[in-house]
Every structure is written in C-alpha cells, then in structure tokens.
C-alpha cells in the first residue's frame, strides 16, 4: 500500500471514524459521503464509533499473504459494531479462544509495514471485551 493511500484513511483506521445519516439513522464504516438509501435527501455527519461489537464470522489464516507470515495462525473476522456496520478485522486472541457472538472491543495495533525501510501502518484490531 502506498504511503499516501494509507494516510488518507489514517484517521478512520486509528479511531473508527465513520459516518451517520441523520435522515434515516444509518451508520457507515468505512465512511460514506452519500447515504445509499436517502441519496440527495441524506444528511451525512461524521461519527466516531466506540468500537463495541460482536464477531459474526471468522476464519483462521494459516497461509498468509506476504508480510503477515510471522503472524500465522491468526484470526480474520467480520465484526458487527453495535450501531450496525460490519467490518473485516484481525482479532487478537488464540485460535481456540474465538467463537461466534464473542463480544469485542478495539485496540490500537500495528496492521503491517512496508518492509524494514518502509512506513509502519497502525490502526484498529479487536480483542475480547471481557
């Protein structure tokens, strides 16, 4: 990923900043500039999620993409935030500890890097809430 591409989405990745349509009360993460339901009548505002959510699907990665080999086995999951949006994320826990419906909360972690000389990419992962 290019430095500029990551930087543009940095704030939303660090702090789970998405958007909310005041017209239909739908929440979006990643943020949408236009509400797909209300279209022109939508009233979009910035919204910071506190990150409370639930695991609704997960898989265990054992053959990882380049740059993630040292993390295997790790968990990639779909987390549904309490406001509704679903996001794909890593869950930082043992592969025998995760289950569907697990309550999770966000943590600030390294997401990856551009090699020894490259930039370090930080952002949000999730851990068990209790």
């Amino acid at each position, binding site marked *: 990923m290019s430095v500029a591409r990551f930087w543009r989405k*940095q*704030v939303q990745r*660090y*702090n789970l900043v998405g958007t909310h349509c005041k017209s239909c009360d739908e929440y979006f993460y990643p943020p949408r500039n236009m509400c797909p339901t209300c279209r022109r009548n939508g009233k979009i505002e910035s919204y*910071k999620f506190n990150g409370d959510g639930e695991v609704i699907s997960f898989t265990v990665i054992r053959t990882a993409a380049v740059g993630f*080999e*040292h*993390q295997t086995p790790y968990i990639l999951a779909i987390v549904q935030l309490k406001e509704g949006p679903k996001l794909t994320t*890593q869950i*930082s826990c043992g592969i025998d500890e995760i289950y569907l419906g697990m309550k999770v909360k966000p*943590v*600030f*972690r*390294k*997401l990856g890097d551009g090699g020894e000389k490259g930039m*370090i990419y*930080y952002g949000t*992962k999730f851990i068990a809430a209790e």
Partner: protein
Amino acid sequence: MKTGIVSYGAYIPKYRIKVEEIARVWGDDAESLSKGLKVDEKSVPDIDEDAATIAVESARSAIARCNIDPTRIGAVYTGSESHPYAVKPTSTIVAEAIGATPQLTAADFEFACKAGTAAVQACMGLAASKQIDLGLAIGSDVSQGAPGDALEYTAAAGGVSMLIGTNPDEIIANIEDTYSFTTDTPDFWRREGMPYPEHGGRFTGEPGYFKHVTGAAEGLMSKLNTTPKDYDYAVFHQPNGKFPSRVAKMLGFTTEQILPGLVVPKLGNTYSGSCLMGIAATLDQAKPGDCIFATAFGSGAGADAFSFEVTENIEKSRNKVATIEEMLQNPTYIDYSIYAKHKDKLRRA
C-alpha cells in the same frame, strides 16, 4: 503556578515469560538469578505491539479515567528508548490516535529509563506558564535485551501516560516540586543502528543508579525540607527488585513505603515506563492527603525526583479503568521460542 497529575493511565501487554524459562535456554541458574534480581517474570509485547501502540493504549486509558476532552491537550511528549522510527515522532501517532491533533506541540524524548519523567517535567513547565491547558507525558517501551545478556531477564514492555495540568478542581495529585541530578556517565548506551544496548555491568550500580537516585532524592528532600517519614509511599526506578529496595534503605525509606509501587517482580523493567508504573500502582491505592515520593533514573545518567500530594479528586477517578494490579493478573505465559518470535529475534528465510 502549581501543577499536578490530572489523570494517569497504563498499559501492560498480556504475555509473560518467566526468568526460569530464559535461564533454561542459556543454562543459567534460575533460582539464583530470580533471587538476586528479585524478578520472577517479565511482560512481552504481542507480535503487533510496539512503543507507539503501548503509548496510545496508555494515553487512551488516561483520557478515559477522567473523561478528558483530548482537544484540551496542548503538548504530547513520549519518552522511550524503543521508538519504532529513528526519524518520525511516536508522539504524532499518539496525538492522532487520541484525537488531540492538530492544535498542539509534540516531540519524542529519549533518556534511557527516565525519558517519561523528563516529559512530565516539560509538561509541568508548559502548563505552569499557561502555554498549554493540559500536557500529556508518556513513558513507553518495548525494551531490548540481547539474547543471553543479563538485561534479557528483565527488559520488559509497558507504558504509562500522565496528564499534567493546573486546575485544582481536576488535579488528583499535586506535584509539590521536582529536582533533577544529571552527569555524563556512560553506564548504558545503544549506538545508532544497533539492535541491542550495551552496558557497563556492575558500573551501572554505584556511579550510575545509586549516585544519581540518591543525589536527586536528597536534593529534593533538602529543597522541600522533608524527610522520608513525611511520605506515605515511595517509588524508585525499578530495573530489578534489588536496586529500589537497596536505595530506599540507603535513603531511610521503609519496605512498607515502597511495596505498593514495587511492580517489577511480576512485570520486569519497562524502562521509560518503570518509575511511572510504580507511581501509577501507588496512586491506585493512595488516599486523599497521602504523600508520595518518587525518583526515576535514566542511564547516561540522570535522576528526576518528585514529591506528590494526593487530593480529594482521586476518589472520582477510581474504578474507571483497570488498575496496575488487575493488569498484572491472568497473564498468558509463553516459552522462549514464542518470546523470540514476538521480539523479532528470529528472522524467517
């Protein structure tokens, strides 16, 4: 104008390795090491944790404890000897991740194990002179010990954030005064580009730790006209369990005064976070009116002494975030091979 701690927060990774496991690999006498160092185990960062992520987690904890608006923070200073970048501040990452940007100043500090308290002093100055409303001082490290080196038994991971301000209605502990003692003493160093620090062995003791800690501690007590009996608690930099216990005795403090803040036996040395972690653990237990004496030490070498008086406001900050004692409970123990992977001591083909 008087300054004080408005809030504090800490973060300790969940992984631990026992001294006996490290000793098993290097063929050392675990019992003698544990007894000599007075350290049983140390914290280990997760594979995706570094000084920046730990700093962010501790800062978020400090903000959550007292429900502080992060845009009030006018300075973020992060002290560490394991900043993830050689050039590019950790403090900007923290400031962005807590929502304090862009109207603030930020910089990284480095002074071995006392960079965190140096950051506290800088925030005190800016807050007292009304240049800023609140200052965020952080000590955070994923400290390095070369495989087989004596430091490997104690070099741990963790961080503490302190919000420094001047509003008496918010301050949970007044900083009565601070006093520093600094000389050019090469007891411990790491050259540019080198992965692990070097140290002067026993030279780190008398001319390093003990001379500077006693110099700063005696200097502050003389300045304030206080004695160890005037304090309910005392915290000294904890590279191991032996040094703070010995220096406390040398200065006239009792075991009972240092025990609440002596976290090193189950945590290890969190370097820039070490003394601040002891202060945080003490604040977790302290009552309004209690007085706390603290002295941080950084190789190179210098010591920063502080005198705190806990205020009534501390009761409002209770039970909002996990205590140090709670963070030390239920760790996940790992063996040396997993530890080596977490600490990037092993390189894949």
